[in-house]
């Protein structure tokens, strides 16, 4: 166990200006820790309103030469950054290379502790029944490579973090949040599919693995200094049971978006994906390529009705969410301020990419 726990620490936060990162920085400061916030070189931080004693360290993990100085005086690394936009290869390469370069720099420093943002996406949703816990199986090859670029990149990022932690003898806590939501990320891609004014809600009565961004950030800040967190993996979800139907209704009511909620039974929707896949394979001799939402394993990872207990978080850390769902709604939509819904939020929205790059034609 690290000897730095139990006292104010100096914490390096990567992806600090992302949705989760902003709240993590605030949560760490609230606990009396000092923060060095790593943001990309071209990031405008003026709107973040961080206190003056938050150090800004500008770097792009994929390319910046001088990463070691980011660790000067640092006790703990909170690693939130990942490439969450762009094509599959861009996400994988950016996320993995950035993490390797960051941890190489850490290995040459005195820092010994990591709190890492994993994701629910790494689980093997196809085989999990009833409830998803920290002991649920992870996606493995070859099925992993049927999943989307985000899941592949985050799986490899976690593998890299675990390997380098083992090689260096660090203390690691892996936190796997469910759907992070809050101001700036109100619409969740785990609700269903929007088609004009229609909100197709797959499995409208299923519970969402929600974690309100300030609650989620609270877990990250907590794990920085709690000895019991070291060496552990936790799923991060709030305690309220919130259904798809309810969340979508709140989103429409509070944003003033007009539309109609259409409940679509999960079993019917998943059957449709399997029919689509069979048909595609039949037509294209086993090689067909479908839109992401029609790929069964990807559909399951977004919409499968499971229970998401936070028992381990509560029993091992004694944690309970700071804000109830109702309180979180008020904080998210207060003063009528909310962003446009994200077209496709990711399951774990660290949103603190090294550098986004849209998918598109390259020169190849």
């Amino acid at each position, binding site marked *: 166990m690290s000897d730095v726990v139990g006292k104010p620490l100096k914490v390096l936060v990567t992806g600090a200006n992302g949705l989760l990162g902003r709240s993590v920085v605030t949560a760490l400061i609230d606990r009396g820790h000092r923060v060095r916030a790593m943001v990309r070189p071209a990031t405008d931080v003026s709107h973040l309103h961080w206190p003056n004693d938050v150090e800004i360290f500008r770097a792009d993990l994929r390319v910046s030469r001088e990463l070691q100085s980011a660790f000067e005086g640092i006790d703990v690394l909170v690693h939130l950054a990942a490439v969450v936009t762009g094509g599959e290869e861009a996400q994988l390469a950016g996320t993995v290379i950035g993490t390797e370069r960051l941890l190489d720099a850490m290995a040459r420093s005195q820092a010994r502790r990591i709190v890492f943002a994993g994701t629910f996406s790494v689980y093997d949703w196809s085989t999990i029944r009833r409830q998803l816990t920290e002991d649920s199986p992870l996606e493995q090859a070859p099925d992993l490579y049927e999943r989307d670029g985000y899941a592949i990149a985050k799986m490899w990022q976690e593998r890299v973090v675990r390997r380098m932690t083992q090689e260096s003898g660090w203390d690691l806590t892996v936190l796997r949040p469910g759907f992070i939501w809050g101001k700036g990320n109100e619409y969740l891609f785990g609700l269903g599919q929007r088609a004009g004014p229609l909100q197709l809600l797959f499995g409208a009565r299923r519970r969402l693995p929600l974690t309100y961004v300030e609650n989620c950030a609270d877990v990250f800040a907590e794990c920085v200094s709690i000895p019991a967190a070291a060496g552990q993996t936790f799923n991060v979800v709030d305690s309220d049971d919130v259904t798809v139907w309810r969340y979508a209704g709140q989103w429409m009511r509070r944003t003033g978006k007009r539309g109609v909620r259409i409940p679509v039974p999960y079993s019917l929707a998943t059957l449709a994906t399997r029919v689509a896949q069979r048909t595609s394979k039949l037509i294209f001799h086993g090689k067909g390529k479908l839109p992401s939402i029609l790929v069964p394993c990807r559909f399951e990872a977004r919409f499968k009705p499971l229970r998401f207990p936070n028992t381990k978080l509560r029993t091992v850390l004694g944690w309970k969410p700071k804000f109830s769902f109702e309180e979180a709604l008020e904080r998210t939509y207060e003063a009528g301020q909310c962003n446009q819904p994200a077209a496709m939020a990711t399951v774990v929205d660290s949103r603190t990419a090294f550098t986004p790059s849209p998918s598109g034609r390259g*020169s190849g």
Partner: protein
Amino acid sequence: MRVGVIGTGHIARQHLSCLRELAGVEIAAVCDLSRGLAEAAAERFGVPRWFTDSRTMLDEIRPDVVHVTTPPTSHYRLASDAIQAGSHVLVEKPITVSFDEVESLLDQARDKNRALIEDYNYVFNKPVQRLLNMIESGEFGHVVHVEVLFCLDILAKGNPFCDPNAPHPCLTMPGGAIADFLPHLASLAHAFVGPHRGVRSTWRKRSDSPLPSDEFQAMVNAERGTAALGFSAHAQPDVFWLRVYGTKMRAAANLFETRLTIERTRGGPKPLVPLFNSLDEARAVRRSAFGSLVRKLSGGPGAYEGLWALLTKTYEALNKGGQPPVSSQQIQEVNRLIDDLKKPEYQF
């Protein structure tokens, strides 16, 4: 054939996907500076060995063929190492960042009696191959002129070519991002009108961005005709036009899709010729609309069909001891054209 692939990024996935399908080919190892990426590629494509050092891979694996799929600035050293190790080498375009390095690699390959191939994938796309076959058979007549034009929004926010946080490796090359596309333009021009005799080019910068230039036009006087080459980062929507003008026909292909339309000289009443040509064109456009969708849904190589065709022909040639589909002379002539397109003395 035992194959080693150096570089496991975006384009390497196409190489590996194709190699996995080719009979008589064994992907023996992959290599990347990133251990995570090397391991990921090995796991995904069932490759038994992975390396983070290319020279170690060459020493331990002794591959028959090496694919170099890294950023262009590293091509020369990696290709040279592979040739010296006795491997045939297939290098992604642009093969090197200078013409001197191209000639050096060609010399090394000749000295070692190894094949050196640059990826001119679009030359092997189906519409291009169909036109080349029609020209060879005489059906198209003689090619008088060819136009090759990219319209590609590489200035879009977040595009890797103008990423303000991580400068793209190509920006250090003469010509910047556009230089990354010149092998496509030059190889297609070369395929239709042969080696060039003279060029005039203009490079412009319309927008404030990290790119040294974002607009490019060139006129090429070549052995068998003329060529107009262009790249625009502003003209939209995205398209990759190839227009070929022959003495009996003219053709237009959008190489981002499957579209190929052909107009031909015809017999019969002259007033009806435009009608027949328009009906032909309408049929071809309708066919391509569905063809492009089917290509996307098929799970095949999509716009990289030319790369797959090139690799297939390459391995057929290497297995039989025949001539590879891209010759040393072709590489030299294409890259001499690219070199001239970038020379200040030929710009107006």
